[in-house]
């Protein structure tokens, strides 16, 4: 059979797993596709190459199409988020200095309680707190801004540090802490220069992290091909959320072509068993990263609005209009069209109240029932876009 070739861009992180696994385990071939996986080194590079048509689709930070929709990027053809690829997978790491002060203040690094960690930081911080994130428009930025804000820390500065350079920046004292996707937080712990304070999921139970992006002209102009790609990735996500798959996924991802790191490092994030200090203390975090269960792949338009609201405020734009613009780029319509027939559970609405579920909840779906995953913020924040969709 002749396979259709697609060039997919990814940045080497454990949450690139849906693309890599779809290629390695044959989910792509089942849909008649052959992936050329292109490893990239910067998020801006991914955005630009997608815009210029040098790659057909990409693994990208969820807020990136939001920023692009708000004109905060170069003049490129529009691209859309077709589905989420992952939730969670981030961790907050603190440098040796801050670790010592937190310990002195009695903090126990339980890697669980965001409120306690926030209070401890407020007591321990001296002067302006500098926090590294991988990109200005990232879930990490939203997590940090929300958590520090609620914790009453006002004197902080969020700066961009490329993930492979996070450990260096922390060691050099350029930042006091950082929030990054795995395996880069664990990498800093192994270097003996950082301790892990919190997983992203302790701040927000289901933070959408990466999405599958495609140019709008291609997604709409070649619906059959778009459907095949989405189904291949969706089946890969479903395989990844079987607990017994995670060890094998870590082994595949760690190969030289992909992350090129010891499998043990990728395995920590994928299994939710993280080493939080160089001394060897480990913590278990169920659902540290999720790919599929609880409608994890459904691109709620309300999440586009949530990210748009903060980005708009930060760039002097009118929030309501920004939300409207951003929501158009989360393609729940394409999700329903292509993944509904493949068996994905479809929620009745395309936007919802974010942060409302303290526990998993069963709701009615297009066909029978579906389970929505708990998505509460640690402080009970809820967010509802001012209009339905």
């Amino acid at each position, binding site marked *: 059979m002749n396979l259709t070739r697609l060039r997919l861009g990814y940045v080497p992180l454990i949450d690139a797993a849906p693309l890599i696994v779809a290629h390695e385990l044959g989910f792509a071939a089942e849909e008649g596709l052959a992936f050329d996986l292109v490893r*990239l*080194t*910067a*998020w*801006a*590079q991914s955005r*630009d*190459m997608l*815009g*210029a048509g*040098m790659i057909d689709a990409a693994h990208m930070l969820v807020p990136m199409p939001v920023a692009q929709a708000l*004109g*905060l*990027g*170069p*003049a*490129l053809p529009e691209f859309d988020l077709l589905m989420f690829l992952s939730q969670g997978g981030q961790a907050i790491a603190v440098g040796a200095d801050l670790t010592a002060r937190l310990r002195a203040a009695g903090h126990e690094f339980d890697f669980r309680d965001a409120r306690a960690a926030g209070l401890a930081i407020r007591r321990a911080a001296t002067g302006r707190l500098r926090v590294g994130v*991988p*990109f*200005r428009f990232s879930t990490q930025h939203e997590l940090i801004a929300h958590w520090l804000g609620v914790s009453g820390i006002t004197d902080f500065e969020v*700066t*961009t*540090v*490329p993930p*492979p*350079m996070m450990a260096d920046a922390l060691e*050099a004292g350029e930042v006091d802490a950082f929030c990054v996707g795995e395996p880069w937080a664990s990498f800093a712990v192994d270097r003996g220069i950082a301790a892990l304070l919190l997983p992203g999921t302790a701040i927000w139970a289901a933070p959408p992290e990466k999405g599958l992006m495609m140019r709008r002209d291609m997604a709409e102009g070649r619906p059959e091909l778009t459907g095949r790609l989405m189904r291949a990735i969706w089946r890969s996500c479903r395989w990844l959320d079987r607990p017994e798959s995670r060890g094998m996924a870590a082994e595949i991802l760690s190969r030289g072509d992909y992350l090129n790191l010891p499998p043990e490092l990728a395995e920590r994030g994928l299994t939710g068993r993280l080493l939080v200090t160089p001394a060897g203390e480990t913590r278990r975090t169920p659902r540290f990263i999720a790919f599929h269960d609880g409608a994890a792949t459904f691109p709620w338009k309300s999440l586009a609005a949530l990210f748009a609201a903060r980005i708009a405020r930060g*760039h002097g734009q009118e929030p309501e209009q920004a939300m409207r613009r951003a929501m158009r780029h989360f393609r729940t319509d394409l999700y329903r069209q292509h993944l509904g027939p493949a068996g994905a559970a479809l929620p009745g609405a395309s936007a919802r109240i974010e942060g409302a579920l303290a526990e998993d909840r069963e709701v009615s779906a297009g066909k029978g029932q579906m389970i929505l995953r708990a998505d509460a913020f640690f402080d009970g924040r809820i967010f509802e876009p001012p209009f339905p969709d």
Partner: protein
Amino acid sequence: MDKRLAIMIIEADETRAATIVDGLREAGDFEIHTVSDSAGLARRIAETRPDVVLIDLADPSRDILEELALASGPTERPVAMFVDRSDAPLTRAAIEAGVSAYVVDGLRGDRIKPILDAAIARFHMFQRMRAELAATRAALEERKIIDRAKAILMKARGIDEEAAYALLRKTAMDQGKRVAEIAQQLVMAAGLLT
């Protein structure tokens, strides 16, 4: 007359940086700064206050530049925006050449274009050189594998080098594959057997 534009080139490879500088000198009279290390990039930019920053599309420090381009307040803006948003074809040509440019807000398109054209030409040249280098390396690698496969055959079957190569070639032709692929398979299989 307009003031001389300041251009900053961020490039770790010195030869490459020099070639880009040459290209820009041919294109006009500019004040050119080269930076080889991304450490302290924000400070360097704040000090130099360049009108244009040029950087490899795939440089990891680009994400830092994105931040600088967007985050700075009105009074401290070092590099304010991307290439003129009205000139989409130029943006695209730059991306295809592998160069990314950050341009200070309000700079006229006719002043940016010669700079970008020169950078694009030089980056295209580099892409060609890189592709040629990769092809040469691949060919060299294939030669090594074929040599190893020949040695295995010579030892296992007691034949000479010429006969070993002929055998590889015949097998490749029979299977519709390249000699290098057959050699690769043989080397791998031999590795499993020993």
